[in-house]
């Protein structure tokens, strides 16, 4: 495949190493961290307004977290050796340590919190459901089917404690992804101490926007009224987080422009040419300034409910697109210029290849399929009690 090159690249640099799949990876983990942080608002900070999205946010986080390793696996030259990262990790490698951060987050935080939160429902359903669902719920109880007041109180307390641990863990999860890029000193586009912080805030932005959109969409599909108080609150958080995120990114940019070190001329040229559309148009103008302005409108003016909903939908979509563009510009942009600062290469994405567009699309659809299944098994809705405690008799309620 001929790759157009401009100026001089070191001969081994012409081919890009990290493809669109590696763009998906920080994008997906960002959605996970952001969704979890939104969920924790209700649990830890007692923001009652966002309660309708609490469980949905947790299930969204889990759906995306389960898919997060797939783009990495597909990208590896030897996926069959990937477990070596756990068996014989190289302690100085940011990437090796990330495996443990991921496992910690999946096993110790997310799965445990979801299980504790749903345990009561699972136990009740294991008693009322029939056939295969009954078996599934019985397995999901993990043998813990006591629903006494005391045990429910323990669930609640433990859940709260795990959320407390979960918040720094979510920060760690995505901040660490930022560190994987930010610690590469050979690459001036990546190497920045601000990278983990920018990644954390952009994760929160994308996760909040995604849950907001999913909440709106699921309400519409279920024919239920959207809780506008909840939506207003989420949109407010989205705007504040986005302003912090944008400020940090602009701070980084201003510093680079003012310092204008040896890499600046090369990077500046790249932004004005190869990254102009994806960075300036899509990420900054369409994906950041426009949604912040739209969300700002809803704060400044008293708009009707239906207009606000429309604005939130548009702003949410633009935000998710903008954050995806940000990941693209970090990952792909960081490989388009030569480390000699004398030339540029191009990224040509295949279609039906192992790391092509089709694979990326399938990987992005997969979390939604998982979410659909999870929602079927563990309904997250607060506006309908699919099963009431009176329908079933707790087995060990008296114990």
């Amino acid at each position, binding site marked *: 495949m001929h790759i157009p090159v401009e100026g*001089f690249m*070191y*001969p081994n640099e012409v081919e890009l190493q990290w493809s669109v799949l590696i763009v998906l990876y920080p994008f997906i983990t960002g959605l996970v961290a952001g969704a979890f942080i939104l969920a924790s608002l209700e649990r830890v900070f007692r923001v009652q307004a966002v309660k309708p999205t609490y469980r949905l946010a947790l299930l969204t986080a889990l759906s995306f977290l389960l898919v997060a390793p797939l783009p990495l696996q597909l990208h590896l*030259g030897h996926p069959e*050796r990937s477990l070596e990262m756990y068996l014989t990790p190289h302690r100085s490698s940011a*990437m090796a340590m990330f495996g443990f951060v991921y496992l910690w987050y999946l096993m110790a935080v997310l799965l445990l919190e979801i299980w504790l939160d749903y345990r009561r429902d699972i136990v009740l359903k294991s008693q009322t459901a029939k056939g295969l669902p009954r078996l599934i719920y019985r397995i999901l109880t993990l043998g813990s089917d006591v629903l006494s007041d005391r045990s429910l109180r323990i669930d609640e307390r433990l859940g709260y404690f795990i959320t407390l641990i979960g918040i720094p863990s979510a920060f760690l999860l995505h901040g660490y992804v930022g560190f994987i890029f930010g610690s590469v000193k*050979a690459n001036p586009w990546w190497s920045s101490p601000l990278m983990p912080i920018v990644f954390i805030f952009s994760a929160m932005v994308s996760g909040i926007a995604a849950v907001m959109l999913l909440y709106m969409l699921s309400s519409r599909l279920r024919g239920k009224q959207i809780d506008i108080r909840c939506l207003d609150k989420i949109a407010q958080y989205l705007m504040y987080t986005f302003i912090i995120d944008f400020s940090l990114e602009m701070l980084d940019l201003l510093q680079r422009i003012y310092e204008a070190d040896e890499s600046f001329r090369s990077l500046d040229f790249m932004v004005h040419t190869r990254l102009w559309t994806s960075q300036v148009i899509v990420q900054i103008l369409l994906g950041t300034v426009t949604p912040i302005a739209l969300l700002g409108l809803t704060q400044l003016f008293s708009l009707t409910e239906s207009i606000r909903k429309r604005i939130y939908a548009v702003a949410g979509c633009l935000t998710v697109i903008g954050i995806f563009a940000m990941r693209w510009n970090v990952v792909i942009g960081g490989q388009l210029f030569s480390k000699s600062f004398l030339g540029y290469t191009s990224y040509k994405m295949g279609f039906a290849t192992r790391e092509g567009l089709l694979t990326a699309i399938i990987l992005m659809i997969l979390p939604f399929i998982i979410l659909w299944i999870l929602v079927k098994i563990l309904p997250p809705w607060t506006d309908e009690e699919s099963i009431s405690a009176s329908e079933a008799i707790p087995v060990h309620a008296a114990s």
Partner: protein
Amino acid sequence: MDITRRRLLVLLPAAAVAWEFVRAGTPESAPNYKTSEHWWGMLIDITECIGCGSCVRACAQENDVPDGYYRTWIERYHVTDYAIERPQVESPNGGKEGFPMNEDSSGKNFFVPKLCNHCADSPCTQVCPVGATFVSPDGVVLVDKNYCLGCRYCVQACPYGCRFINPKTNTADKCSLCYHRITKGLTTACAEVCPTGARQLADLKNPKDPIHEYLRTHSVQILKPHMATGAKVFYNGMDGSVR
């Protein structure tokens, strides 16, 4: 023997670690070679390089380097007197077939052979998630292709563009300083064929190696010293425009 569940839980990880060592195998024997007695590097004299490309061809042949990838390559610099920060650089096919005549007589032209710098504090080995790439006790940065995941993090981390993913093995590949040769008392393939002696293998631990006298009497530099990688490829006569 009775094996309790607890005992099994202890034994299994231990067995997994032991299995890793068994799989790793033993290194190729080199009976008269002691790694602790060497610390390898290379000296490149830019003033001597004529850009013939023999080194690139020899390296490709010796190490079975696939077409389009380079364990070593040559760059030709063209620098005018007012644009030292913007040199014109080219490396057609890594300089494998030499270079076409440069008609531009303004400024200066020179060749810069490049290869892995075998850094003592190498950023590529630092980032490898499984330690498949490492600095050997005698100072050579190597890759274990039977262990490498092919994650490409090391390729990103190398400031000099020396690494690539070998399409035959799907693992990281780079200059090994002809480790299979130098451990048998030979020099590298590139230094062997260089018609002007522009490349010299250097053993920094050997007090009799002429490198010591050379480093004392010449102004040598390393590439990108601000990266603090502990590069061990020394360049004599290197212009400030080289990067």
